[in-house]
């Protein structure tokens, strides 16, 4: 299963690189949810507030689209790394706009912008795929992009509870507060969401 899923993005990537516009559109369509979750996760954790990240997602997808010719990597990992770099770069800009008035944070962002623009500059040509974490070594892997895509097709409250529990890593008590439901209800919601996500993943391809 993992092999097949992996090869879907891999195939799309290669066909898109050979000039298949249809494959390219599909590739971007599949990646949109992934960028979306990453964007929201980054912005919200950083800003400590609920933020509409749709502009950031839009901008990142556009940049990736326009810069697609410059992407030289071959593997999925390189593709993911490349998307992440663009996203990070844009996140800086967005956060700066967002928090421009808060001096202390603005200062922090300037330094960050520098370091990031440097690394972006260096990394643009050859994205470093070498960003695996130790935990990934022993886990059986699903494909990140396809998982995000499947997640984005779940009902909104399913997405929300998974986002809060698994990505933001909040305890259920806090999730219950945020979603304005009882703790038991959000636990149940989470279980159903995970079940449905898992089913979705089985049906992929």
């Amino acid at each position, binding site marked *: 299963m*993992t092999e097949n899923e992996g090869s879907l993005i891999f195939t799309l990537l290669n066909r898109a690189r050979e000039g298949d516009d249809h494959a390219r559109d599909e590739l971007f369509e599949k990646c949109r949810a992934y960028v979306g*979750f*990453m964007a929201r*996760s*980054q912005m919200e*954790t*950083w800003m400590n507030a609920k933020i509409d990240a749709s502009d950031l997602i839009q901008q990142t997808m556009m940049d990736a689209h326009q810069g697609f010719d410059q992407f030289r990597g071959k593997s999925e990992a390189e593709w993911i790394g490349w998307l*992440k770099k663009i996203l*990070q770069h844009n996140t800086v800009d967005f956060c700066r706009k967002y928090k421009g008035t808060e001096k202390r944070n*603005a*200062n*922090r962002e*300037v*330094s*960050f912008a*520098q*370091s*990031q623009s*440097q*690394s972006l500059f*260096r990394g643009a040509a050859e994205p*470093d795929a*070498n*960003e*695996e*974490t*130790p*935990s*990934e070594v*022993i*886990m*059986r*892997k*699903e*494909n*990140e992009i396809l*998982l*995000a895509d499947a997640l984005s097709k779940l009902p909104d409250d399913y997405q929300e509870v*998974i986002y809060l*529990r*698994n*990505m*933001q*890593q909040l305890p259920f008590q806090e999730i219950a507060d945020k979603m304005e439901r*009882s*703790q*038991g*209800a959000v*636990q*149940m919601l*989470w*279980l159903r969401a*995970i*079940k449905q*996500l*898992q089913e979705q*993943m*089985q049906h992929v391809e």
Partner: protein
Amino acid sequence: MSNDVGDRPTPSDESEELLFAQLEAYTQALQVGEHTTCERILNESPEIEPFIGCLGNLNDFSVVQSRSLADINLPEYAPTISSGSGSSSSFGSSMLKPNQTFGKFEIEEELGRGGMGVVFRARQTDLKRDVAIKVIRSHQLADDEDLRRFQIEAQAAARLKHPNIVTVHEIGEVEGQHYFAMDYVTGDTLSDRLKSGPLDIEEAVTLLIPISQAVHYLHEHQVMHRDLKPSNILLDENGKPLVTDFGLARIFGNDDDQQTQTGVIIGTPSYMSPEQAAGRVKLITNRSDIYSLGAILYEMLTGKPPFKKDHPLDTIVQVIEQEPLLPRRLRSGLPRDLEKVCLKCLEKDPDKRYATAEELAEDLQRFLQGEHVQAASPSLISRVNRWSRRFPAASSRWAGVLAAATIVQGRYWISGVESQPYHNEVMTILGVWAIVIGLFQFLAANRTVKTYLEYAWAATDALLLTFVLLKVPEDLGPLVIGYPMVVVASGMFFNVRVVVCSTILSCLGYLGLWRWHPTEPYLPHYGVIFMVTLGILGAVTAAQVRRVRVLNQYYESRQ
């Protein structure tokens, strides 16, 4: 962690409840990075097997997100700028988490974050000892050349062993992340210690002697520290000081030639020598470290570093141009000899400082034993020099008033009677002016009134000058040059509004002369020309001041 589920409400039937408990337990173990627990749970309840792919991957989203966050957090340079110590970040996540395995280390907790990386307490599993590991941020080692330099310098540092330095055990790399492992020291930094105020005199001296000896040891091994400051001095449980982070400043951009490349001034310039602050790379020697030792001594004795302003550029300007307040002013009862030692370290000219850190240690030893220190009292000239650097606004004005008084008095002696009618009055006003300057300087030391003080000072200058000139019944001729001088002098407050205020008041003062003085202006259009020129001069001075302010903001935003 799975047994607290029983009393939770809903899950409708028992199998769901069980499944929830298992998945939640697995998720929790995953999130704290306990992989062995994960495997155990999976073995005990194989029915969750279909889900672990999803859960693992969702968790990676989070890990990925926190790693990029760690990058965002790091440039905060927490130990040097914000709190002065390596307090852990206010932001939640870090790139390595407790219990995570990192090569042969097991991460235990995050100790702090610095300009170049994050420090963790970790257990070295093969040698069963606690170490502090500093994980370098990837972008600090931009390319192979940086990496090579890092390895060479860090290996050089790793060869050094001294009872008062933190030993670097090894340098290595785990999955692309470079690190070095050092002794783990329990205890605070000197910077933490100084938060509760200055130290006892004897305690301060006893502490600085071994620090100086350690620095001397580094110098003997051709390692310059370049970033000595209280937060880089650890105090172990017995209060023994240990110097850390030596020899690394150069690799990680604390060096000035690096600064110009990156545009970032790292850390507080409060402990930087003038040559470092000015970026005069060629002048940076071991004696720059001696300056920093002096700055640390100063802070231990007085409770604050020699120079510290809100804006980094202001601090840099002070480090380069001004003299610190005498320690004895800030702490009465401080022995004069100790003050001499401290000021000798803080000399602007490196050649006037101690030649070696060992000499400093020896002089401090002499002080402790009640002998005379070798640091000589400064000569009269250098005392005047220092004094005028310490109070530039007052000393420049005094110089001006003194010069004027000397000329007036000289003329009186030479030509006598002629000038008698107004001689006394002019001299009196000049005398009053000199006293007023002293008064303003005294008030300026008291920060609370400072903002208005600058305006008042500039206004008084213009006013007193007008009084003096009004007392002179003869043709004033070049004497009106006093007004341009007043305007330029107001520029020394580095405040555009003060310059504007001073220019306007000078023009008004001159108009006063025009109205009341018998011969001024000699020709009406001369007066107009003079006032226009005064306006232009004020505008130029204000422009220069503004330029300095803009530069300051630029530096500040880079901070």
